[in-house]
């Protein structure tokens, strides 16, 4: 019998386990191929307006996925080989050299690998039309829904090269594992402990403190702090998680062991001892799963939430379908109006509002070396009437204001509570008038070139204007003259109109935004993130779940003699079933639960940082939680499928 026959026969005999490899590899090949093909795709290339950024992003994530896949495939394979120790030692007993056994195993890996490579690429090509369409329709606004099927040779070739190198590395590390097997292992059951890791109170407490501290920092309501603290929070929580799985969880188990009444029930005794016996070999995987699932879920849920809110967000950020403040050329308004009539688009609302600035005296505001205000700053300033007119016309959800005389509302561009607290206490000193800041609010679009804006009572405004304390912008330079704002029909669909407007405004206006550009840019970005996130989490779930599977299969092989003994001692079938459930469930459930806990806090942070701060929106926390619970639903679903498969295999092995 030559090696190939033997390899084929082995695959047939171990078909269930190989199928596990087959599926997870096929999906990762599919993902990598899809990404590469999309990078190459001319149509996608043309459709993405905002530079070639999407290529870089897809490529970067392709690489991340490859690295991830490599790591998980290699460790899955090593566990798989260890699970086949008896078989391998038998070959060795029959006089096969380790090198030849290595070749045999490598051949098997290669056969399964090449099959899944071919399948993955095949599936990728088959679905390439669909995936391209999905990507374009989630990202590009004016996507027509028609894509040509194209088979990208370069993508095929790159995918093949990358995966074949991964397979080779799997082969090499497998060989390394095989070389460490001793023939005597065949005859002796695994007598030594794999390292049961007793854990310690100190590590448990340290891990809880680290995680708790991270959570505490993460639940701060101050986005300014959160930005500064992001890295420390990550470090705290991630290191806490690893320490928890390395040293804390074993201690928790040993605390559980103290409750003799529960512990000395047959099922618990069996499950807890063998779980804690495996602890060391599996704790890193569990910690990695907990951390990665939290990170991935948070990132993707945030992406989805942003994506689902682009339209609302857009108007809260830029206010109108179009605004520009004039540059040096007076004819610009005329030109813009001509473009509208040329495109036969009806302008539903239009206004021209003069812009004013003012330089009141107030003390400099500085926090930890960062200057927020000094005499070099100026304010855009509106009367209450002008402000309300602008706000009422805008498509944002901002409410009009009522301002008493002697008061002002200070607008800033972003939510920075600490700074806002200080601003709220300021008095604005004009030569013959002192105006108190009554409130500090966030607005992103009404500044038209300045950093801060003020809204004053109408009388105060006209008084200060008369006194020359408020000056009209002259027509030169940025933020000059007056601002023109427009709302019009089908603003988010009309690509040609937008590109014509852009052409004119880019050259002539002091500053301008169109809702269309903003919207399509956001869609491209968040659509792409959601698209990638979807594939990433698919690969991620499959890889981690199958690694857990292989680790448990390996454990089952080593634990089968336990069950043989236990049956002789008088363990009945039902107890055995329950013991196995209790043995396996925590392996899948604990990392997932900790991941969920992490992401509840991470989501809070994302909410504070992104949604309350950068892109305010209502109910965002609930929305993010909703998306992430959907994701965890998916995780839970896939994990429970793997759990049941694992349990079935485990039971078969120990029979």
């Amino acid at each position: 019998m030559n090696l190939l026959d033997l390899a084929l026969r082995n695959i047939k005999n171990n078909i269930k386990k190989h199928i596990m490899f087959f599926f997870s590899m096929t999906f990762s090949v599919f993902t990598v191929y899809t990404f590469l093909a999309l990078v190459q795709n001319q149509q996608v290339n043309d459709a993405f307006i905002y530079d070639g950024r999407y290529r870089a992003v897809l490529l970067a994530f392709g690489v991340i996925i490859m690295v991830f896949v490599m790591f998980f495939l290699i460790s899955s394979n090593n566990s798989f080989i260890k699970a086949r120790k008896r078989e391998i030692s038998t070959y060795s007993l029959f006089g096969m050299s380790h090198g030849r056994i290595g070749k045999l195993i490598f051949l098997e890996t290669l056969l399964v690998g090449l099959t899944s490579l071919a399948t993955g690429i095949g599936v990728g090509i088959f679905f390439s039309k669909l995936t391209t369409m999905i990507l374009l329709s989630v990202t590009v606004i004016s996507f027509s829904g028609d894509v040509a099927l194209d088979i990208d040779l370069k993508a095929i070739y790159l995918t093949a090269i990358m995966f074949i190198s991964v397979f080779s590395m799997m082969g090499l590390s497998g060989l390394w594992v095989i070389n460490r097997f001793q023939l005597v292992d065949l005859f002796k059951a695994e007598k030594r402990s794999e390292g049961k890791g007793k854990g310690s109170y100190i590590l448990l407490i340290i891990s809880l403190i680290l995680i708790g501290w991270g959570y505490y920092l993460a639940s701060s309501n101050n986005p300014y702090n959160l930005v500064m603290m992001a890295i420390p929070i990550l470090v705290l929580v991630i290191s806490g998680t690893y320490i928890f799985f390395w040293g804390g969880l074993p201690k928790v188990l040993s605390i559980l062991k103290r409750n003799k009444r529960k512990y000395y029930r047959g099922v618990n005794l069996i499950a807890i001892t063998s779980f804690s016996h495996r602890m060391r070999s599996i704790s890193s995987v569990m910690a990695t799963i907990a951390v990665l699932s939290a990170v991935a879920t948070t990132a993707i849920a945030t992406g989805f939430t942003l994506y689902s809110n682009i339209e609302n967000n857009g108007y809260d950020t830029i206010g109108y379908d179009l605004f520009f403040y004039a540059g040096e050329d007076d004819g610009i308004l005329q030109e813009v109006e001509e473009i509208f009539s040329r495109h036969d688009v009806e302008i539903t609302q239009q206004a021209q509002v003069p812009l004013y600035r003012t330089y009141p005296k107030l003390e400099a505001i500085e926090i930890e070396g960062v200057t927020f205000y000094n005499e070099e700053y100026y304010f855009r300033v509106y009367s209450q009437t002008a402000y309300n007119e602008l706000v009422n016309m805008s498509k944002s959800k901002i409410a009009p204001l009522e301002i008493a005389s002697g008061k002002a509302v200070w607008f800033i561009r972003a939510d920075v509570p600490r700074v806002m607290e200080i601003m709220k206490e300021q008095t604005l000193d004009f030569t013959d008038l002192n105006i108190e800041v009554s409130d500090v609010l966030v607005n992103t679009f009404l500044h038209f070139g300045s950093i801060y804006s003020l809204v004053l009572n109408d009388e105060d405004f006209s008084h200060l204007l008369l006194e020359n304390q408020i000056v009209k912008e002259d027509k030169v330079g940025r933020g000059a003259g007056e601002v023109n704002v427009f709302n019009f029909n089908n603003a988010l669909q009309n690509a040609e109109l937008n590109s014509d407007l852009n052409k004119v405004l880019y050259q002539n206006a002091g500053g301008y935004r169109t809702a269309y550009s903003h919207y399509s840019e956001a869609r491209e970005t968040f659509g792409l993130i959601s698209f990638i996130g979807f594939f990433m989490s698919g690969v991620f779930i499959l890889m981690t779940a199958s690694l857990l599977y292989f680790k448990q299969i390996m454990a089952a092989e080593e634990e089968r003699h336990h069950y043989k003994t236990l049956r002789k001692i008088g363990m009945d079938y039902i107890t055995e079933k329950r013991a196995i459930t209790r043995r396996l469930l925590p392996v899948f459930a604990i990392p997932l639960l900790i991941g969920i806990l992490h992401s509840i806090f991470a989501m809070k942070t994302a909410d504070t940082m992104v949604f309350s701060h950068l892109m305010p929106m209502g109910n965002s926390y609930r929305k993010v939680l909703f998306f992430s619970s959907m994701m965890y639903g998916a995780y839970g679903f896939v994990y429970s499928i793997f759990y049941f498969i694992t349990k079935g295999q485990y039971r078969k092995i120990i029979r």
Partner: protein
Amino acid sequence: MQILKVENISKIYGSSKRDKEYMALKNISFEVIQGEFIGVMGASGSGKTTLLNILGSIDKPTTGKIIMEGKDIAKYSKNQLSTHRMKNIGFIFQDYNLLETMTLKENIILPLALHGTKINDIENRLSVLVKDLGILNVLDKYPYEVSGGEQQRAAACRALITQPKIILADEPTGNLDSKSGKDLLHLLTYINDEYNATILMVTHDVFAASYCKKIMFIRDGEIYNELHAGNDKKQFFDSIIDVMSVLGGEER
């Protein structure tokens, strides 16, 4: 008092059509009385392990009855069998089969834990046994952290802790050097004397067999002969050798 009565048991392997049938046990009948220490000897392949497995209800006889407490075990369902094994039978395996994931203590109480015995009971029974067998100090260690003799004693404790009606041992000395083999035999004798435990031990080893009070020889699945230990140990030893040389069992 009679503990066990075996009536006409036979075991046929390979009953499916493709395989050749092989009769490993042929119409065996015997009784076991409380407090006996029986050795089972015979050539390799004569059916000793098969017999022991059937007595331990790990395997079922093809025909025949095994009566314990007036009931035929051969008719028990799978779950009844587990309970029966837990309550009535203690096993001592060739390589002890202590689970390496558990401490000695956990290993010993395992049968009781499976049975759902109350902790107080568990602790009481445990403390008496381990003091007696001298492994009190190593209870919280793992099997690979203690000596072979200690593992052996722990395995004996595990077999004894359920206060089984009968203890079955399949070549318990097979893997041991002569010193620990001797220790184990002393241990079994001690258990037999002190606890009045009934022991049935399969062995190839004439020296080990000479510790028994009675020896059953099996040949080709049938009981060939029985020997009772008299007062003279040397004479008992010699007569075992005589029978074994007829049976062709190798000596070790």
